[in-house]
């Protein structure tokens, strides 16, 4: 028996399938998986979000194309902070066979961003606001306002990105959200990592659609605009609403940033990890710990090193062998976390992609 949530998901999938079929139909897309083929359009060139992506082979990737791709990526990051737009965004995620979807009206002007969620019912009515420094999330049902610091946007590390990904720019332009767009495919050079397809507005480089696929080709998430208006003026009041909050909760800001030189100590995570990840920054973490953020140019993972608490923590999850020691692995919402205890510290690796990648990273730290 179908639940309401399943029906909504199916409806959203059909909607997205219809958008895909009317959008960039000429784009090379992987074949639909049998499990979800019923929700996709009958057009062979269009696919439902659950379609399995076949790793793309790019036989001719010239220096000119690389320059074009790099320029497009740079423009995309610049657009994120400078181009004004508003539209309706659809997000679908897949986790362990469970599908979640959300629809929101999104407006962005410089560093200001506002999202008003329309669906699902559990999120409808909630507002996300950001001024680039802090995030405010308001739930009208509980009249609760949560204020959190927002991390500083990191600079795009193109050399690292090209080192870890094969970037393929589709030479043709396509259509999505009734706008002409360019398609960039980011194929990881290391196994076990997700690959991405970016649909960037041809004129402004605003990201119109972002697809993420697991290493095995199964979809992880898709974010796309059904309709979008780029340019124009958005009233400032939209980014500064007054909430009749009855309860305000503030979360702790992130701690001081630490230098990479601290990596000489064993208690600090290494500066380089498996699969091409390099440390982006290290900072004080909750529980008197250290958090190091690693990036491969696109993807982000976190490694935490906490002093052992008293009593020592109970590590929940599936027992896993990490080489010199054992740990636990568990999926939390959309992340995989691997924990273990070594050198009188608790270590936690958190990745957004797969269990295998989390284990690879953890083993690399244990056996360094």
């Amino acid at each position: 028996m179908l639940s309401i949530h399943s029906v909504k998901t199916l409806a959203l999938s059909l909607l997205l399938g219809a958008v895909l079929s009317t959008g960039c139909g000429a784009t090379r897309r992987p074949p639909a998986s049998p499990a979800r083929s019923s929700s996709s359009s009958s057009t062979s060139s269009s696919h439902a979000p659950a379609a399995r992506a076949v790793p793309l082979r790019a036989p001719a990737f010239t220096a000119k194309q690389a320059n074009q791709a790099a320029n497009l990526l740079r423009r995309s990051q610049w657009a994120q902070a400078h181009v004004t737009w508003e539209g309706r965004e659809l997000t679908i995620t897949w986790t362990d066979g469970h599908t979640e979807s959300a629809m929101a009206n999104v407006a962005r002007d410089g560093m200001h961003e506002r999202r008003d969620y329309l669906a699902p019912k559990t999120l409808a009515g909630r507002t996300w606001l950001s001024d680039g420094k802090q995030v405010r999330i308001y739930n009208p049902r509980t009249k609760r306002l949560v204020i959190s610091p927002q991390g500083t946007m990191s600079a795009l590390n193109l050399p690292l990105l090209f080192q870890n990904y094969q970037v393929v720019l589709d030479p043709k332009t396509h259509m999505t959200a009734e706008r002409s767009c360019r398609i960039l495919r980011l194929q990881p050079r290391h196994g076990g990592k997700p690959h991405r397809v970016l649909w960037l507005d041809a004129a402004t480089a605003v990201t119109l659609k972002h697809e993420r696929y697991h290493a095995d080709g199964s979809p992880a998430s898709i974010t796309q605009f059904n309709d979008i208006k780029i340019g124009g003026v958005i009233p400032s009041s939209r980014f500064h609403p007054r909430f009749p909050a009855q309860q305000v909760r503030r979360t702790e800001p992130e701690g001081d940033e630490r230098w990479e030189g601290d990596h000489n100590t064993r208690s600090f995570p290494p500066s380089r990890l498996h699969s091409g990840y390099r440390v982006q920054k290290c900072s004080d973490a909750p529980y008197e710990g250290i958090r190091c953020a690693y990036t491969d140019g696109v993807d982000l993972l976190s490694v935490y090193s906490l002093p052992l608490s008293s009593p020592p923590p109970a590590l929940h999850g599936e027992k896993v062998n990490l080489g010199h020691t054992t740990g636990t692995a568990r999926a939390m919402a959309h992340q995989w976390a691997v924990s273990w205890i070594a050198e009188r510290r608790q270590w936690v690796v958190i990745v957004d992609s797969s269990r295998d990648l989390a284990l690879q990273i953890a083993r690399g730290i244990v056996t360094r």
Partner: protein
Amino acid sequence: MRGPHTLSLHSAYLDQDLGVEEMRHVAAHLEVCRPCEADLRRMERTRALLRDLPPPRPRANFWEAAYRRLEREEAIPLPWWRRLSMPQRSALVLAPAVLAMLAAVLLSIPDPAPQPALYGPDHVDALIDAHMRARAAQPLVDQGPVRMIMVDARSGE
């Protein structure tokens, strides 16, 4: 010398329980006082009569009846406290006192500190929250799912 009558001393005189002077006094008085002498003679005759009487003998079933009565009395159970031996009676008295002292000692000992938990929390939930915040500031990351998860997790309660 006649003097007062010595009637009250006659019984002791016959038993020779008086002192030498009293014996002489009573003897001298009896020689001159006829009533007292007559009283002494009556007393001597009575005593002689009693001495000549046969000794009293018990009834024929006296001893049998006496034994039966004793047996009946032995058959009646004694109260429990009378059946206890002396050490047992001592223990009976001392036991409550010892228990009271023990209770006082136990009550005076402070409660042991609560046993600490064997394991603490692993904080992974909070760490994932911090990871999501960092991910929201990463270029080229699809922000839709990140925002969706954060909105759901932070304002959901």
